[in-house]
């Protein structure tokens, strides 16, 4: 009935990518949080979040992104956002979070960058 969030996990090179499609809001952000937690529990701490198909994000969604960054940092890893949809980029810019997250145009660029940092 309402908007939902589809979460998929795939690889770009040796980096795991979480692909999001839909709205990241107070009702759906747990899906993203769970996906990050599962990766970290599996020993994966270098993560790209692809936000090309995200329609809207609210403050809970932003909080979940910050939480994801905190978790990968704790695990000595890194997090990047790839291909943020215009509405997402607008929110990141207006809040100032664009200074907190590494933003890339695509998964490949993000994965290459994280790989360099990792090594």
């Amino acid at each position, binding site marked *: 009935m309402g908007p939902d969030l589809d979460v998929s996990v795939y690889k770009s090179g040796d980096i795991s990518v979480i692909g999001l499609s839909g709205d990241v809001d107070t009702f759906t952000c747990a899906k993203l949080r769970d996906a990050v937690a599962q990766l970290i529990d599996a020993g994966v701490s270098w993560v790209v979040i692809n936000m090309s198909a995200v329609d809207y994000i609210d*403050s809970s969604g*932003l*909080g979940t992104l910050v939480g994801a960054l905190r978790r990968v940092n*704790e695990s000595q890893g890194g997090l990047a956002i790839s291909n943020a949809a215009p509405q997402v980029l607008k929110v990141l810019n207006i809040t*100032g979070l664009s200074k907190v997250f590494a*933003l*890339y145009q695509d998964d490949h660029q993000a994965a290459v960058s994280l790989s360099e940092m990792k090594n």
Partner: protein
Amino acid sequence: MKGNEGKRLFDKKIVSGSREKEGWKPSDLKMFKSLREVLNKVNIAYIGTYPPTECGIATFTRDLVSSISKYTPFCDPIVIAVGGESDIQQYPKIVKRQVPKSDLQAYLDTADFINESQASVLNLQHEYGIFGGPDGEYVLSLLERVRIPIVATLHTVLFSPSPNQKRIVQRIAELASAIVVMVKMGKDMLVDCYGIDPDKVVVIPHGVPNVHRVPSASVKKTLGIQDRPVISTFGLINRGKGIEYAIKAMPAIVEKFPNAVYLVLGETHPGVRNYEGESYRLELLQLVAELGMEKHVLFNNRYLTLDELINYLCATDVYITPYLNKDQICSGTLAYALGCGRAVVSTGYLYAEEVLSEGRGVLVDFKDSDQMAEKAIELLTNTAVREQMESRAYAYGRRAAWFNVGIDYLDLIHSICGNARTFTMKSASQVVESQTVRRR
């Protein structure tokens, strides 16, 4: 950090509150310090009515403050509530100052208060009736004295204003850095009828709650109206709502749908109650009795909480706004109905004309109960058409969700305050460099 992590990271309480108690680690605190450093900040003063005052503008102000605050967790909003002279209101702590509506000196003193505060921008919630003086002109004294940029949200733009009403809006536009209206038609009127610079006028939709729809059948059951076609209207009841015309449509609807029920949700507007008591509601009750519709028109004479309201809207099959004022450029109740993805039948006031275009609702003539009945029956009969309309309404409502509207206001405010900072996606080398610096 489990469970509510997202909300809590953007919850102001954790900035100064009991972080250790809630299991925050030193690394969390470090991140907070970092966020405090880099997040964009703007302290905003707001003036308007505010709950517990019961009116649409008070609700709007509260929702706007709340939505903006979620994106600016390290800033303190300064809310200034305008209230009646003889009322004592117990406002929440966020309200830093009260202005007795008819006390001109209080407006001047409040301007000084704003100038001495940390606020870098003032948001005015304007409707003629909420401020003191002829047509609410006292607010101009405050605006003329304030030394920070002003963003004025206009809830009423009259097509045929009196000379004084026109003067007030024109003066607000002179003093403000930006004027916000909620529909494009409002902007057109300000430009064409008031001569206001179009570059100063910004259209930001009326915010609506973030609602994820659920099947109406399940909600109806909780309300005890299962298996009944539900039509509803909500809001603070007053004669301008034209509810009698929707009630007169009910016999024809009931003939086709014998179980149909029309819910009239909300109490009498407190301002109306002050001068005519419950006489309008009593007239409506009498009309219901005359039509023999006692089992088909039900009233809930209370100021509903947001959760109650959303429940009722989610249980609604057809929402009706039978309003009488053609010039109305804003309706919170209609916005909320769209936010819940309801099929709408409405008279053609300006706001409805615009937001219900593109198949998001059906317009009928003013005071025309027959048309209301006809259109409601069509929507109740043709489920496919109704569901298509609901989907279009819901899509509009998503764009107008408060979390998007708050961002639109912040975008405008940052541009006015000159501190908008835009970052684009970086090249890989730039990011590696910046992250390496951060991680050292």
